[in-house]
């Protein structure tokens, strides 16, 4: 796995953004900026990124634009002890990438059984219907971690990128009131 040192990590933290690699150079920016600039994924392939964006958007509107796939991808590339992913709170055993890869495979398999297409290719309505079944462990033939757990983790990731930032608080009208603010609003 790619790795950034603690110094680089802390630099990102105090700058309120993450360390992405652009043209071989480490650049500190927020996940939504990385998506807008088309920063290549470090670990995810294009299909995985597309699927995470579709799942994220289904779970929490605006998660795609907020850079959920870039956030997850960047966080999978740092040592688990420095990870900010919800997988850490769910007490998953590193490497966390295994969870996301397996989840995407399970989602696509279920989606293909139900509708003959990968999840990202479903209509918005079908994506919602699928996620609703997944959260209740009702997708037939599902393998791997329970669908409800996949729902919970990805939903939490999406909540992070949409609502967990200073911009997210502002959108809800909640005063952020930080002791030590994440600069650049995250």
């Amino acid at each position, binding site marked *: 796995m790619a790795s950034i040192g603690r110094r680089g990590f802390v630099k990102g933290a105090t700058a309120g953004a993450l360390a992405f690699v652009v043209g071989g150079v480490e650049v500190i920016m927020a996940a939504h900026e990385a998506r807008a600039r088309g920063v290549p994924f470090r670990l995810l392939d294009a299909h995985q990124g597309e699927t995470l964006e579709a799942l994220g958007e289904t779970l*929490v509107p605006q998660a795609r634009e907020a850079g959920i796939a870039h956030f997850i991808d960047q966080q999978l590339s740092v040592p688990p002890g420095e990870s900010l992913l919800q997988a850490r709170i769910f007490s998953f055993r590193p490497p966390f990438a295994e969870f996301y890869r397996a989840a995407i495979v399970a989602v696509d398999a279920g989606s293909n059984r139900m509708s003959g297409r990968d999840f990202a290719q479903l209509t918005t309505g079908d994506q919602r219907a699928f996620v609703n079944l997944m959260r209740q462990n009702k997708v037939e033939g599902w393998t791997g971690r329970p669908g409800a757990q996949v729902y919970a983790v990805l939903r939490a990731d999406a909540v992070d990128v949409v609502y967990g930032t200073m911009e997210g608080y502002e959108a809800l009208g909640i005063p952020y*009131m*930080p002791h030590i603010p994440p600069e650049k609003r995250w």
Partner: protein
Amino acid sequence: MTNEKVDVVIVGAGASGSVYASVLAKAGKKVVLLETGPDWELTDLISSEIWGRRVKPAGAPVLLEGKNPMTYSAQGGWGVGGAALHYFANFPRLLPTDFRMKSEHDRGSDWPIAYEDVAPFYDKVARDTGVSGDAKAEEKWRPAGEAYPMPPMKTFRNGDIWLKGFEANGIRMVPAPVGMNSVEYQGRPACLYDGWCHVGCPIGALANPQVTYLGNARSAGAEVRALSTVTRVLTNPAGTRVTGVEYYDDKHQKQVQEASVVVLAAWSAQNPRLLLNSATDKHAKGLGNASGLVGKFMMSHHVASTWGMFDEDVQNHMGTIAVQYMSYEHYPKTSHATAFGSSFVTAGFAVKTTDLANSRADLFGPELADYMKRAARNLAGIKTFGEEQPRMENRVELVSDKDEFGMPLGKLTHTYDEDAVALWNANLEQGLKVAKAAGAKESWSARGSIPTSHLMGGTIMGTGAANSVVDSYGQSHEIPNLWVAGPSIFPTAGASNPTFTIFALSQRGAERMASQWGTLTN
């Protein structure tokens, strides 16, 4: 590499280890703390749910099994200060009945000590760290003690709005005691009430060990070695004494730290793991484990959460993560006709966006977006912590899978029994009645899987090696210079948040160690 021998090596720089370090360093002992996670500065404590995960558990995972796996990561610690670096700092105490479970109810175990043995240490911890609250108001339920050194914290509408509902249900609420500053105390500032306690308080208003005991310990000469992972406790050839610990340093180099006394203060799941992994030919089942009880009687608190949506803006972004109000009204073990065990009732706490989203975990998509807008203004919650009875089946054991240092991982198996499930349900039903009487327009229980909070047990205290691992001070029954500290020595759980008791028992144990030093080093 073998380091110069010290008087005391403490494994873990969290709540209990920091107290031992402070007391013993001030007593003139040469103290080294070994902490598996990083060291933190207060300036590392960024006010962000996302960045706040840096101070949550990492490293070798505990494998979780059972019908109710112990989900520890949101509340657990990582690094110097441990979980207390970012705890909620609710400081209720155990009550006399908790120490007499077997005598009064023929369940679980009696503690080998009484409430009165611990009470002076509650008072001392309150003075030393700073506690805000109204002791007199609590004393309708407990024996009298000293007043808290600071007045209660401010309350906010997200707490006050529940009082009518509690009163209607015959539950008296009083200001909650918390390890936070309502006013400036011992050079630390008063709280700002912006609700970021759970990711660490960088101004020091929250009594985390970095600004209390560890600061004192360092000033007295204690050394803290971060990123140092202990894998074994070492013994002499006869197996009669511990001689130090083996650990891996920040460069992953194997080291030995010799010491006259070893204190394990590494959290309830890790203390048993270390003892079990330190087996020798003289201690084939692990150190201090002649009884076979190391790793047994793991306990948790279940939490019954009730949410209410109110017509008015309840300012739920204001306050602390600690609660504003509490009650021991349902603390007697037989308070509920249909369930056994203590309940600790709380109300009023700040929420962040993660909490808002988790309060309706079933919602997603546009429905979640709509809900978040309403909840941001109108949502408030109450929580009742419930007691779980100790059971042998809830346990920590080693598995063949190993961590990066070659140490077997710990597996924690946890299942609530019928008593716990019944009590959780009774508390949820009570919560809905309170919410209705409080005037909530919508109210609901947080159902689904039963939450687990506050891991306890695993190296329980008792009267002898036949029924326990350590005595009431935390001293091993079998090896006199091996001590264990923290919630792992609790033989029953009560329903009160445990950290105040952890501090108090650690203070008591450390003072005992200092006073008996000559007997430990001979």
